[in-house]
């Protein structure tokens, strides 16, 4: 049985004058200890997917339909008490910006110990000892002193390590990391990713890594979902997706990587922008930006189907595969 099984998840936002669909029929599975990447441009619904998994959407967002089975139990149906037991305990989350994630008026120790004591019957001292052990695991020097410090006394990289340590405090089955290095210095990004990979592997923790960085996905994850305008448009093993993308959007993303361009040349980009939630075009949401779009693409939403090694939602995938255009595009 898989650790996490998301079925047909639809999330909506009730705005003042209309209700928009932010996630549309998202389905995927995650095995125990598996690492999954979710990629896409800003606004694709990656973060909303992450928050939905913990049932943490705040108004006006809400889960409209679908199931999120975590260890066999539907997160969508859980009451507040069950949800509290889930959050931080069985499923932990690492937020995007460590500068604003920790509470500025509470010490690191208070924020770690409260998390432990919210889920386990421990004395304050026992909780403190566990916190120290976990801080050591993320290579924080002199952890006893750190516990007495406030977040503003620590650097961004240090804070994100502490947040990783908090995520690991209760030995969760799954960690959801929402762009955990976007707000950090490039030199620290690699350290943090390496640390997360090491800890996930050694503790057999599942990881959902939300990012727009395909390089990070290829280094960190075994499987990848590509999202566009609230839908999964391509899914499969990370190696397959990076080396042989099928969907024109995924191809565009990979072609846009700086490594795909010779020095001095203009970077390749996908023309246009991701549509806003209120103005998702009919048919395949990507069609206005896609040079292969046909009338069918403009009228009907493509189903996600097996194609070769991956799953892809594109009407034209077969034509593309035999098309010279594609060879050209990948050259």
């Amino acid at each position, binding site marked *: 049985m898989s650790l996490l099984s998301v079925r047909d998840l639809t999330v909506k936002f009730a705005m003042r004058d209309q209700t928009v669909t932010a996630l549309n029929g998202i389905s995927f599975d995650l095995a125990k200890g598996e690492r999954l990447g979710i990629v896409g441009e800003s606004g694709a619904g990656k973060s909303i997917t992450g928050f939905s998994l913990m049932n943490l959407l705040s108004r006006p967002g809400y889960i409209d339909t679908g199931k999120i089975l975590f260890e066999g139990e539907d997160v969508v149906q859980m009451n507040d008490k069950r949800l509290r037991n889930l959050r931080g305990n069985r499923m*932990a989350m690492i937020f995007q910006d460590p500068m604003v994630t*920790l509470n500025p008026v509470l010490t690191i120790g208070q924020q770690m110990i409260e998390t432990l004591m919210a889920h386990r019957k421990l004395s304050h001292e026992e909780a403190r000892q566990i916190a120290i052990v976990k801080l050591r695991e993320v290579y924080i020097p002199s952890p006893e002193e750190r516990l007495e410090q406030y977040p503003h006394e620590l650097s961004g990289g240090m804070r994100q390590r502490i947040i990783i340590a908090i995520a690991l405090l209760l030995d969760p089955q799954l960690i959801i990391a929402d762009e955990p290095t976007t707000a950090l210095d490039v030199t620290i990004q690699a350290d943090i990713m390496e640390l997360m990979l090491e800890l996930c592997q050694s503790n057999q923790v599942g990881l959902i890594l939300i990012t727009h960085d395909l390089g990070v996905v290829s280094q960190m994850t075994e499987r990848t979902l590509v999202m566009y305008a609230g839908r999964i448009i391509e899914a499969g093993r990370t190696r397959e997706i990076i080396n042989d993308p099928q969907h024109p959007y995924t191809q565009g993303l990979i072609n846009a990587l700086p490594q795909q361009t010779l020095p001095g040349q203009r970077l390749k980009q996908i023309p246009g922008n991701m549509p806003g939630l209120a103005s998702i075009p009919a048919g395949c949401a990507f069609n206005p930006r896609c040079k292969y779009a046909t009338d069918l693409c403009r009228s009907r939403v493509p189903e996600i189907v097996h194609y070769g090694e991956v799953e892809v939602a594109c009407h034209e995938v077969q034509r593309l595969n035999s098309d010279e255009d594609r060879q050209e595009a990948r050259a």
Partner: protein
Amino acid sequence: MFAYLAKRVIQAVAVMFVISLIAFAIQGNLGDPLRELVGQSVSEEVRQQLRDEMGLNDSFVTQYLRFAGNALQGDLGTSYFFKEPALDVILKKLPATLELVFGATLIIVGFSVPLGVYTAIKPDSILSRIIMGLSIVGISIPVFLTAILMIFVFSVEYGWFPSYGRGDTVQVWGYWQTNFATADGWLHIILPSIALASIMLPLFVRLIRAEMMEVLQSEYVKYAKAKGINPWRIYFVHALKNTLLPVITVGGVQIGTMVAYTILTETVFQWPGMGFMFLEAVNRVDTPLIVAYLIVVGFIFVVTNTIVDLIYGLVNPTVNIARMGA
């Protein structure tokens, strides 16, 4: 810590200097002191002689320096009406006013935090809407009107509370007589305290609500939820502490303002405090007393603000007083 304190004290002295300058300048423009001191039968020559003796013909600077020098020694002049040192007159009235302000502060702190937090957590509930509606009413009605209405309803119609004065007070120390030692004292201070609190309380409810709602949207509150923390702990430990930081700053200024507001409340309730005394002093053109009042109130402002800044530094870990130098 010492450098910070020194800096604050220098600032306070500068503010007091400006206040004394303004107060002194007013003194010169409130009419001729001789008219209050001597009768109409005194001849012009004697008046001139008296002016010379009192130093009223000296230059502004000389007069101010003399005034400031005396003030530093605790001599703010002699009240024309009471024939006593103005400072003594005020110090005798000060406890009554401070107790009134204290009573109002208790009401404000006691009610604004729970009401502000509740209306922030449940912004759409009917009770929240009622509280917010009433708060608008409270802010809009002037203090003296609230006071008169309360006297009419609770003193005249129902007779639950006395309508004027301090009632039975108990001597505590020096001039200090307290209302909080006897049941009669308590009964007398309740209505004036509510009246004085009636404008500040809604203001603070709205302030706490607005700050709290903003804090509840923050990443660290979302993160606390993601850690599975109990909602009460999130509200009262994670959110409230951050909410109160700006509230403390505003609160410090408002305590000073409340001392000034007591003029209205004390007048309506015939409360024998500084505010009531000030109004009488104005009616009697008792210039030294008016000037002394301005300086004492200015001093209270400066002291409360300095204390509040120090408290703020203690509550907010990102302000490190010990390391705050020049």
